[in-house]
Each structure stands twice: as structure tokens, then as C-alpha cells.
């Protein structure tokens, strides 16, 4: 009996895995196979070998673009956190109905197409847009250009990604047992020390989850930085697109994509060692 149990999996335990089969097959066909092809392309085109990787890892342009990509993703993550944390806190303290109303407002931006949101920022921040007009009305001579700068692309990306951060933090904050806060208060923790020693550590999983999601999604942003950003601050996805669209450099583009993927996996790996990836799902 014991022998049987240890070698043959329990019949009932197979079912959940079988249910996953369609998804696994789908992912294997439409995600893994193309990914492997990309990997193969990166070492076979145009000459077989590692020339593409050498170029990506040593060329000044690529290094600059990768640094800029990770720098931008970090900046956007920090901004999302600064915006999202207080909002999530507000949601966790108001009535359920008010929290739902705020949640609705936040998710509403998900219902608008990505491109529309990007173009909306163009209208708002443009030379003849309301923001510049307001600055001029307030007496600012020669307001600085807002569009096509690092400012405009960062702002738009924060707008698009902040909901991911807010929802992650809100879920964690909602589950915090109020009695923990009360007992901390009864022990003499107030204000800043209550926040630093009790509340912040309790919400840390939400911060970590939200940050890793925002960071990783931001690494692959394409349209927003291309349309709103400054020409000097390119992101990796835009450059990969350009390599392929303009130069037909499939090999070089693939190598860049693989490098981006590997670096992202390394970051996720570090995160996993520190917090555990399984926490992302609950």
C-alpha cells in the first residue's frame, strides 16, 4: 500500500493537472516555440555565432538603451508607489461603498485603449494644450516644453501602471487585522513609529508584488515612450522594433530581446529568493 502510494500518483491528484493541459499546450505552442525560435535566430543570423550578443553587450548604444530602460522602469515603479500607496491606504480606511467607487474610477482607465490614453496625454501636454495654457495664464513666460520629454513619457507610464500597484497594495491592506494596529497603539506606538514598525512591514508584501509587476511590465513598454518620449531616451522595446522594422536585423533584434528577457528573469529570481514568487498570486 505504502509502495503504491509513493510511486503512482493518487488518481484524484491527476485531475487538476489534466485541467491545466489545454493552457500548457497553448503556452508551449504559442509562447515557448516562438521564444526558442527567437533564441535560435539570435545565434544564427546573419552569421552563426555569438556576434549579435557581442554587439548588444559591448555596443555603447545598446548599453545606453538598456540602462535607460531599467532606469525608467525603476523611476516609474517608484512614482507608482508614491502615488499608489496613499490611495490604497485611503481605500482601505473608507467605507466599503466608497472604496468600490474609487476602485471603479481606477479600473476605468483600463477600459480605455492604450493608444487613446497615450494620445490624450499629447492633447493635455501639447503646446496648445490646457496645461501650458494654465502655466501661461499664471504668468509663466515661456513655459518649458512638456511633450516629447522624459517627463511626459514617465507621467503617461505611471498613469497606465499605477492601477497594478494600487490593487496589489489595497488587497494586502484590506487583510490587515485592525486589532494588530490597536494593540500596537496600546503598547505606545504612535504616528511615525506605528507606521514604520507595524503598518509598513505588514503591507510590504503588497509593495513588493506591485513593484515587481509594474517594473516588469514597464521594461517592455513600446508605444508610450516612442510617441511621448524624448528621442534621446529610447527604451529597449522601441530599439528592438526599429532593428527589425528598419534594418531587417532579425538576429540583432532577437539577441536584444533575449538579453532583456534574461535580465528580467534574473530580477525575478532575486525577488523570488527574497519574497517568494508564489506570493504574487495571493
Amino acid at each position, binding site marked *: 500500500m505504502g509502495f503504491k502510494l509513493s510511486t503512482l500518483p493518487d488518481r484524484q491528484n491527476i485531475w487538476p493537472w489534466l485541467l491545466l493541459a489545454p493552457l500548457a499546450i497553448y503556452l508551449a505552442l504559442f509562447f515557448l516555440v*516562438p521564444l526558442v525560435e527567437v533564441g535560435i535566430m539570435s545565434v544564427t543570423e546573419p552569421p552563426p555565432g555569438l556576434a549579435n550578443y557581442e554587439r548588444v553587450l559591448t*555596443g*555603447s548604444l545598446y548599453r545606453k538603451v538598456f540602462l535607460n530602460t531599467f532606469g525608467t522602469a525603476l523611476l516609474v515603479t517608484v512614482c507608482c508607489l508614491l502615488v499608489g500607496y496613499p490611495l490604497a491606504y485611503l481605500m482601505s480606511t473608507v467605507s466599503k461603498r466608497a472604496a468600490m467607487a474609487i476602485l471603479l474610477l481606477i479600473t476605468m482607465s483600463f477600459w480605455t485603449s492604450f493608444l487613446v490614453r497615450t494620445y490624450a496625454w499629447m492633447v493635455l501636454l*501639447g503646446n*496648445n494644450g490646457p496645461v501650458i495654457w494654465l502655466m501661461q495664464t499664471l504668468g509663466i513666460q515661456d513655459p518649458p516644453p512638456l511633450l516629447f520629454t522624459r517627463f511626459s513619457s514617465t507621467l503617461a507610464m505611471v498613469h497606465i501602471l499605477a492601477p497594478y500597484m494600487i490593487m496589489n497594495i489595497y488587497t494586502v491592506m484590506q487583510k490587515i487585522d485592525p486589532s494588530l494596529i490597536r494593540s500596537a497603539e496600546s503598547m505606545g506606538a504612535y504616528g511615525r513609529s506605528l507606521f514604520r514598525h507595524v503598518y509598513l512591514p505588514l503591507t510590504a508584501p503588497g509593495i513588493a508584488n506591485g513593484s515587481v509587476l509594474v517594473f516588469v511590465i514597464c521594461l517592455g513598454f513600446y508605444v508610450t515612450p516612442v510617441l511621448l518620449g524624448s*528621442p*534621446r531616451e*529610447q527604451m529597449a522595446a522601441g530599439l528592438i522594433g526599429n532593428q527589425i*522594422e528598419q534594418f531587417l536585423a*532579425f538576429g540583432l533584434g532577437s539577441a536584444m530581446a533575449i538579453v532583456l528577457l534574461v535580465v528580467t528573469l534574473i530580477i525575478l529570481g532575486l525577488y523570488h529568493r527574497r519574497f517568494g514568487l508564489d506570493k504574487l498570486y495571493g
Partner: protein
Amino acid sequence: MTINNKKKTSLIRPNRRLFLQGTAALAGASALAAPSIGRAQSKELYINSWGGPWLEAATENLFTPFTEATGIEIRTVSPVSFAKLAAQVRTGVYEFDVTTLGGGDIVAANNAGLLEPIEESYPGGLFQNGVGSHAFATMMAWRTDAGWDETPQSWADFWDVERFPGGRSLQRYPARVLPLALLADGVAPEDLYPLDIDRAFAKLDEIKEHVRVWWTGGAQSTQILRDGEVDMIGIWHGRYFEAEDAGAPVDFTWNQAELDNAYWVVAKETPNMEAAKMFVEFATSAEPLAGFVSQANYGALNPAADAFVPDAAKPRMPTAPGNVEQTFGQDMLNWGGDPQEVAMRFDEWLAS
């Protein structure tokens, strides 16, 4: 099916057409009407579309008349993608059969073996396995509300941020931009080719910080001019007239406008070869081409089309008498370097 088994790679690429045809094949296998389905497939031609005014003019003057004449339905695929043309030949899965390429891309595409050999449909019409369709111009345009005392005349004025302060924009496409820099540096149009690449980059250094947008799409260029995001722009003439017609305070000059030719090409080894070649011949024949260029303000490359172009359409055509003398052409075969390598250098220059 459109999968070409001769190709080395067999990527699994989900694709609308493949899916539709796969479904059609399944339907055919289960029904008895298989032969008619097989025929129905060859009655469709997929064309890569530029959208906007191009698509309107092409639909009215080229696509609809072609369908009426041949019974072959035309479907359009957007956006225009040079990379997709290459990917199609590589994978054997075709999303479009016919596309148009500019002078810069057609040489690279033909060298890469992406183009099906094609017949000359009018004398002198063949270039690098493409048939010449129409000319378009990259010209200088500006906002009339920029507050300058003078009117800019040439690319030298475009570079002159002292006399004409304000934001600039150029296309992110070095094959077109480098010659403009050399003109601004005082090179005569007839001495441009082969290009002095280093000198062009040195001249570009001067304007770099003033170029707020390196535009990548036609609609984008119209938008930034119309909305006043920049004060001066190097823009395709058709896209400029869109801004003018929208009532924006803008003006332009044909002086030193850079002519570029667009060519119809057939994707190498496309399963729709016959219909594709028929279409290219039709689209470059005198009357349909004349209608197309008259509506979209292009200049017809087939001289026979001129007879059908109404005089009223000519002022907006870069190739019309009075305009064409002020323009200059491209010489892609004597360009002065490998355009791909220069384009990579341009990218590096842009990010530095």
C-alpha cells in the same frame, strides 16, 4: 494553403489569413464543394496599405476598378511593414501579396531577395524588381504663427535657429535626412551623390538639440505640425496638405524638396503571384494611375498618365511643371555608403 514547405524555417505564427484558409480547408474537406473553395481563394488579393488619404485614393482609383475588371477582391492589410515583407518570405506565411516600397527600401529588399521578378509594364518603369508608381516629396513646411520677420527659403534656413527660432522635426529616416543636411551645408543638389556621410552627420550635430521629434509615421507628422508642437518640419507633401486643409496656419516651399519614388512590388514566391502581377500592371497603367495621383496629389511615374491628369490637380503635385524644377531626386544606386550601416550609425548618433 499558403505554407511554403521549401522554406527552412517553419515558425508557428498565428495569422488571420492562415487561420481563415485553414478553416476553409477544413470546411472543404467535410463538404463536397471543395473545388469551388479552392478557386475562391485565388479571387482575393492582399495589399499592404498606408491608410489615410493614400488608401482613399487607392480604393477609388485602383482597387475598385481592378475588382470590377477582374473579379478579384482586394483586401488591405495595415500597417505598411518592411519587416513583415521579409518575415513572409522567411516563413512562407503570407499576410499580403503586394506592397509599395520607397527608393531606399527597394534596393535593400531586392538585395535581400524579397522581391518577385516582375515585367516592365511601361517603358522605363522597372527598377530593382519594382514598377514605378508615383513620386512624393519631403519638403520644408512651417507655422506662419511662429513670429518670424522673414519667410524661410531653403534647408539652410531650416538649420538657422537664430533667424528662425523654434522647435524642429524631421523624419527618423537617414536616407532622406542626410541629403537635406548636406544641402543646408551648402552642397549643390547636383553634387549631392555620392553623399559625404561624415559631413552630413557633422551638420546634423548642429540641429540635433532643436529637433524635438524625429517622426516615424505620416499621421504623426501632420499632427505635430497642425497642433503647433514644432515650428518647422521636413514633411511628406501629402501629409502637409492635410494640415493645410484642416485650416492650420502653415506654409511650405517646393524649393529643395526631395523627391522619392514609390514602387509596387510583389512579395517573393507569394501563392497569389498571378493576381499580384496583374494588379501591379493595372495600378501602373495610365488611366488608373492618373486617377490615383490626381486624388492623392502624387506625381505619376508613368509618363502616359500625364494626359489624364486634370490641370486643377497639378499645383499640388511635386512633379508638375513649375514645381519639379525646384526639387531634387534621390540616387540610391550611387548613395555613398551602405544605407543599412548608415542607418545604424544614425540610431547610435540619435541616442548619444
